[in-house]
Structure formats: C-alpha cells, structure tokens
C-alpha cells in the first residue's frame, strides 16, 4: 500500500509540475490578498487590543498560508474529479492495487505541495520585511502545522470530489473557502472581530490553525497556541482522511 501510494503521489506531483498553471492560483490569489490587506490596513496595528507585532505583514502571513492551503485542497479535489471524469479513476480501481492508496496517494501529494506553499509564504514574508520571531524552532512549527493542515484540506477536497464526481461542482465550493476564512481569526485578532464572527471564530478550527501558524511568526513560541494549532490541524486531518476513505468505499460500493 505504501509503495503504490508513493507511486500515485509521485504521479500527481509530476502532473502538477507539468501543468504549473493549475498550481499558480494557489499562491497568486493569496499573495494578492496579502498585498492588499497589508497595504490597505497596515495601520490596524494601532487599534487598541491588537497584539504587539513587528508589522501587519507578520500578522497576515498566517492568513495567506491558511487561504493558500484551503485553495490547495480545492485544487486536489478538482484533480480527483477530473480523474473520475476522464476514466483514469476507474482504470485505477480495476488495477491490482490497494484501493485506499488511490486516496492516500493524492493526499500525500497534497502534503508535499502544502510544504511548498508554506515555504513560499515564509520566503515572501522574509523578502518583504517580516521576520520569524520564533527563529528556526518557530519555522519548523509553522511548517509542521501548515503541512498537517494542508493534508487535511486536501483530504476534504478529495472527499468532496468522490461524492460530487465532477470538477465544476468541486470548483463551486471556491466561495465557501472565503466564508470559512471570514468566520475565523485568520485575518484579524479574534477580540477585534465583529459579532457574530467572533463567536463563530471561537468554534472554527481554522482559527486555531491560523493562530498556531501565526504565533511563532509574531512572538517567541508559546505553548498554548502552538499545541492548539497542532491539535486542530491533526483533528482536521484525521477527520477528513477518514471521511475521504469512507467516500471512496461508498463510491466503490455503488460502482
């Protein structure tokens, strides 16, 4: 199972490398938002209650990462749906491989792409004047939470694709990415969100993932937000991987 999962992950990554136009929007749109948010609202750090940060870019980096990782999940979902539409998925099902590796291979590839996405935004931040206050341990924590969360979002995309079976339906969830982001503390401190966004944000796992990504960037590593971030990312991943595998079994039963 591990060998076939790795082989399918490699295939997905090679496919992504051959068609970078599908990967570019994962970083371009969040980069544009990052530029607009930091350029337009950089004075927000003066607001009473805003945490002490080196600059608004430092604060917004976690938001851009979270947004990019969610879009990565949508992209992997579209990729899975296209394989279903083109018949490649059926050929994989008919081949003598563990069927769960079809899902795991795609999710594994999503994890590798998530690592690239997080590193991209760290690089963008450093180039434009942000700093990782937590140093190397902080960077490693950011990478760990980012990759774990990206894996979970990828599993979510795969699950939706297996249920929907067509790319246009998966593409239709794009606005929902922003809905879940807007009701989290990804873009602004929870204490400064309007009601009821602040209330929803306290129950939204994205808030904890974003805060966990942010903490090592804006301050020295604090145990609580990091552990909450890791727990939220691990919970999201465990839940969505299980749901994606269940969706695969459901689809195989129908076939």
């Amino acid at each position, binding site marked *: 199972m591990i060998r076939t999962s790795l082989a399918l992950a490699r295939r997905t990554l090679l496919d992504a490398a051959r068609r970078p*136009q599908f990967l*570019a*929007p994962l970083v*371009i*749109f969040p980069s*544009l938002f990052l*530029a*607009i*948010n*930091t*350029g*337009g*609202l*950089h*004075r*927000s750090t*003066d*607001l009473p209650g805003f945490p002490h940060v080196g600059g608004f870019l430092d604060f917004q980096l976690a938001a851009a990462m979270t947004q990019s990782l969610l879009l990565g999940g949508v992209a992997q979902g579209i990729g899975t749906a296209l394989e279903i539409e083109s018949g490649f998925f059926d050929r994989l099902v008919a081949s003598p491989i563990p069927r769960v590796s079809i899902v795991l291979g795609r999710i594994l590839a999503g994890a590798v792409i998530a690592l690239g996405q997080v590193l991209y935004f760290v690089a963008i931040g450093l180039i434009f004047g942000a700093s990782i206050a937590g140093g190397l341990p902080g960077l490693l924590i950011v990478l760990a939470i980012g990759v774990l969360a990206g894996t979970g979002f990828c599993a979510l995309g795969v699950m939706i694709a297996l249920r929907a079976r067509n790319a*246009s*339906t998966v593409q*239709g969830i*794009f*606005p929902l990415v*922003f*809905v879940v*982001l*807007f*009701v989290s503390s990804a*873009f*602004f401190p929870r204490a*400064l*969100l*309007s009601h009821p*966004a602040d209330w929803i944000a306290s129950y939204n796992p994205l808030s904890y993932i974003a805060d966990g990504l942010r903490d090592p960037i804006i301050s020295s590593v604090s145990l609580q937000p990091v552990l909450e971030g890791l727990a939220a990312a691990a919970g999201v991943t465990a839940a969505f991987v299980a749901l994606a595998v269940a969706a695969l079994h459901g689809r195989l039963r129908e076939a």
Partner: protein
Amino acid sequence: MSRNAAMIWALARRALNEITRVPGAAVPGVLAPTIFMVGLSGVFGQAARLPGFDAADFRTFIVPVGLLQGAAFTGAATGVNLARDIERGWFDRLMVCPAPRTTILLGVVASAAVRSLLPATLLTCVAFALGVDFPGVPALLLTIVLIMALATAIAFYAVIIALRFRTQQAAPLMQMGGFIAVLFTAAYAPKALLAGWLSAVATVNPVSPILTGVRQGFVGDVTWHDTWPALLASACLLVVLGSWAVHRLGRVGD
C-alpha cells in the same frame, strides 16, 4: 444599422440565457461579492475606528468595493464564456457569418453590462438589510452607470485574453485583471491611510476615480467634483480596451 442592433441583441440574449440555462455557473459570481462585503466588514470592521477613516462604518465603506467586484467578476465571466465558445468551435462559425466584427464584439460584451446588475442588486439589498443607509436616487443611478461601464470594460479585457489564449484555462488571468484593478485602489481604507506603495498604485489606477464616484453617495453627498473623473475614467477604459479588443478581433483568422 437595425440589422446590427438585432445581431447585438441576439448575442446578448444568448449570453443572458446562460443564467437560467446554467445557473450553477452564474451563482458563484453573483454570491461572491456579497460574501466578500459581509465577510470583510465582519473581519475588518474595527478598522473604521482608525483616525482619518471617513465613513460611518466599515460596511458602508466597503459596499462600493463589492459592487465593483461584482462588475469585474461579470466582465471576466464574459471572457470565460467566449473562451468556451472558441474551444467548442461556435466562435469560428460566428466569425464566418456576414456581420461586422465590431457588431459581434458589442454583442458579446453587452451581456456583461446587463448581467453586472445581478450581483449589484443582491449586494445592495443585503447591505440595506444590514443597515447601510440608502444613498439617494442620483447616487444609485450614477452607481448603475459606473458598474455597467466597468463590467463592459473588464469584458473587453477578458475578450482580449480569450482571443489571445483561446482556452478556458486562461480564466484566472481574466479574473485576476479585474481583481487587481478593483482592489489595488483605496478599497479597504481612505488613501491617506494606505501604505506608500499602495497609495502610489491607487493614484495611477484608473479604477480609483470610479470607486470614488460610486462611494461618494454612500459616505456623503454626490458632487460633480467626484463624478466627472469617474465618468471620464470609465469612458477612457471603454475606449482604450474596446479599441484593443476590436484590433484583436480583426486579427482572428490572419
């Protein structure tokens, strides 16, 4: 002349039919600006407390941005639809019909102007329901004119991209053009509060006066001082992008 008008109407009606024929494709474009308006005002609402913010609240300030975003999405969708027609060969059949190419182009983009009123209507209704003050009839009429003009201008841009790349895969490029044009302005805060680089970009961005023209009625009174630059910028965008699109269309088949 009447034959050209009939052709423009037929093409525009065909594009408008897609709203009822493929509602799933139209819904995200209609909903997205409202989601952004509600979401951004919920997230960044406290920014209105910053000294120098010249609006009663952040929601009122951001409504015009949502209106222009809706227009930009609609314009980009026109290009995506054209790219799909190119991929399926329908556009080639259109090119060999005995009609002036300018007429065909106007038919393609005319639908964008009308369709842009859909997200604008939804967003305005939601904004009023959430407590944004009615800006007055003159401000609303000016808003409608500016939204339709921007949607048409972005549609011209998207048509240029569609004719250049001839594939729906160029859709992000079409959407990104409108996205950048609308948001790299004083979208989130008054110009005085923007970072230096964004303030410089907003100064030369032709959509900035259009945003000011739409926003004036929501945050204050409609004045000629803020109206004429908006109308002039809209006209310039239409002339420049329209001429470019006509030129691009003229080269099809060369």
